[in-house]
């Protein structure tokens, strides 16, 4: 099984009338990888995921998930994937356990195994003591955890998480990610996640940046940041003017003062710091090295920040996001 691609996509395209939501993308995700789809709302991430989950048809191109074609072997794909949708899909009138049982029955799991798995999954997502509670009484974070647990119930090979933290407060977002990372460490599973939060994309092994229906670039978060280039090194010294001059003379760097700090752009900022101390010949009071963020990466490849891109979508994008959250 190893060496096979968990997700393999070629020339995938989806058009709604004249609007091309996905414009012919290629993509490979290795088994066991945590792969992130990053992009603003309306970039086509959800549409692409829907096709991979067999609930939407592609207009052109092909895709296999867990070794099966998403168009012609729908049931085979569905058995092997777990899906956590952007919008909540639990029945709030049922208890946590009833929701899981419903899922297991629909996936045709043998009864004894199902009972065991329900115990395990509830334990895993920390809801064992709430198993008989109606989901109505759950917080947003608990509902999400239940959904993630449910997505894992039938032991999928690939888990799709579409914006798993949307609409959650920062603290809950962080705990969901801790949980996903933990899951990843403990289980032999491929995780395919979409997000429009830059900071969340850093949890992935590899990221594809999607914008306007196209994959702009795909690589590891580290490589993407390196491609964008230099780190930012900011120092506070006893004499900024001298520091700027020496940086030019001795290191060939153009420095400027930003927010009271002398700032230079330099590749491999962390490696540069020891040299800086040794050769600047000035007392350095503080030093900060800032790696380019994925925000910078997005900006470098699309010319805009994610936030700008979303604002350009205007009211309609906002309404969509609100509708998704309900």
């Amino acid at each position, binding site marked *: 099984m190893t060496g096979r691609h968990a997700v393999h996509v070629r020339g995938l395209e989806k058009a709604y009338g004249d609007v091309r939501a996905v414009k012919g993308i290629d993509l490979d995700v290795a088994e066991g990888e945590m792969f992130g789809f990053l992009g603003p709302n309306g970039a086509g991430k959800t549409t692409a995921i829907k096709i991979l*989950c*067999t*609930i*939407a*048809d592609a207009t052109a191109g092909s895709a296999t998930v867990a070794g099966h074609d998403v168009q012609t072997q*729908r*049931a085979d794909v*569905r*058995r*092997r994937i777990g*899906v956590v*949708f952007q*919008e*909540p*899909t*639990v*029945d*709030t*009138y*049922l208890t946590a356990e*009833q929701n899981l*049982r*419903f*899922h297991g*029955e*629909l*996936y*045709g*799991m*043998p009864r004894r*195994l199902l009972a*065991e*798995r329900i115990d*395990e999954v509830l*334990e*895993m997502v920390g809801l064992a003591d709430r198993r008989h509670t109606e989901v109505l009484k759950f917080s947003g974070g608990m509902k999400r955890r239940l959904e993630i647990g*449910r997505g*894992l119930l*039938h*032991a*999928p*090979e690939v888990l799709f998480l579409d914006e798993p933290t949307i609409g959650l407060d920062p603290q809950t977002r962080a705990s969901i990610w801790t949980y996903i990372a933990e899951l990843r460490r*403990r*289980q*032999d*599973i491929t995780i395919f996640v979409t997000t429009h939060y830059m900071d969340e994309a850093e949890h992935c092994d590899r990221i594809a940046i999607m914008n306007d229906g196209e994959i702009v670039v795909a690589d590891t978060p580290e490589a993407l940041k390196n491609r964008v280039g230099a780190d930012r090194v900011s120092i506070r010294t006893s004499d900024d003017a001298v520091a700027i001059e020496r940086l030019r003379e001795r290191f060939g760097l153009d420095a400027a003062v930003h927010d009271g700090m002398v700032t230079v752009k330099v590749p491999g900022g962390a490696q540069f710091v020891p040299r800086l101390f040794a050769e600047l010949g000035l007392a350095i009071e503080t030093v900060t090295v800032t790696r380019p963020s994925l925000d910078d990466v997005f900006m470098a490849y699309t010319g805009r920040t994610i936030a700008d891109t979303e604002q350009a979508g205007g009211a309609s994008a906002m309404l969509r996001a609100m509708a998704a959250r*309900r």
Partner: protein
Amino acid sequence: MNAIQTLRDARPDRVVAGGLGHELRATAMVWRREMIRFRHDRTRMVAMLLQPLLFLFVMGTGLAGVVDTGGGLDFRTFLFPGVLAMSVLFSAAFAGISLVWDREFGFLREMLVAPVSKSAIILGKCLGGATTATLQTLVLLALAGVVGVPYDPLLLLTLLALLFVGALMLTALGVLISARIKQMQAAMPATQLIITPMMFLSGALFPMAGLPDWLAVLTKINPLTYVVQPMRSAVFAHLELPPAARAAFDPAITWGGWVVPGGVQVLVALACTGLIVAAGVALFNRTD
């Protein structure tokens, strides 16, 4: 943690069944969900009872003074099967369009991404809605004696069975509506728009004898007629009545002069139900 180990052992190729047994389990589970939700809905159940009670005891009693039944027949006895059908009709249709909520609150998606056929899910939904709607009429059915309908076990079972067929038809109709209409604000009036005429044209509230042609034709093409009329005939079969009253209040359904037997009427109802379910499944295209 041994969860990892179990997870590996539980990989889908070994875990997930397939075939008819699996489909039936899915249908049964969707049905069970309707039952669980039904238990939460006691208020709605009580509210749904009010309307038929008003029809039976207020309108029925009011009209009893002016309707000449030829003696020996309480007008409310005549009305009883019609009111039963009416009550099941509305609860069933609303159970059907609860699929609109399922869509809006996302649960439909959980059902539609599962490795089972859509037919299995829709069928479970229809059977579940029909069961809850039928259960709701039990309170009403218990009042049979009050309006002169004998508590004959066989009669009560027949009525329940026919009510279930009617409920299935209307739930399926509700499902059909929600396949196309995606907002509750629109689905509710659309449902009313369809089932209110169905109810009036089924002979639930008036006898079908001596109707003008246009009205007679409309009642005969209404599938619900083939649920209400067998119910009424079943009730009338347990009553001692002069032949004139029987002819006036429980006339035979005829197609171009042919008297349609009760069994055929039920078959017509079942066939229509089947068609509506099939149409509902077909309309739920997979991109929903």
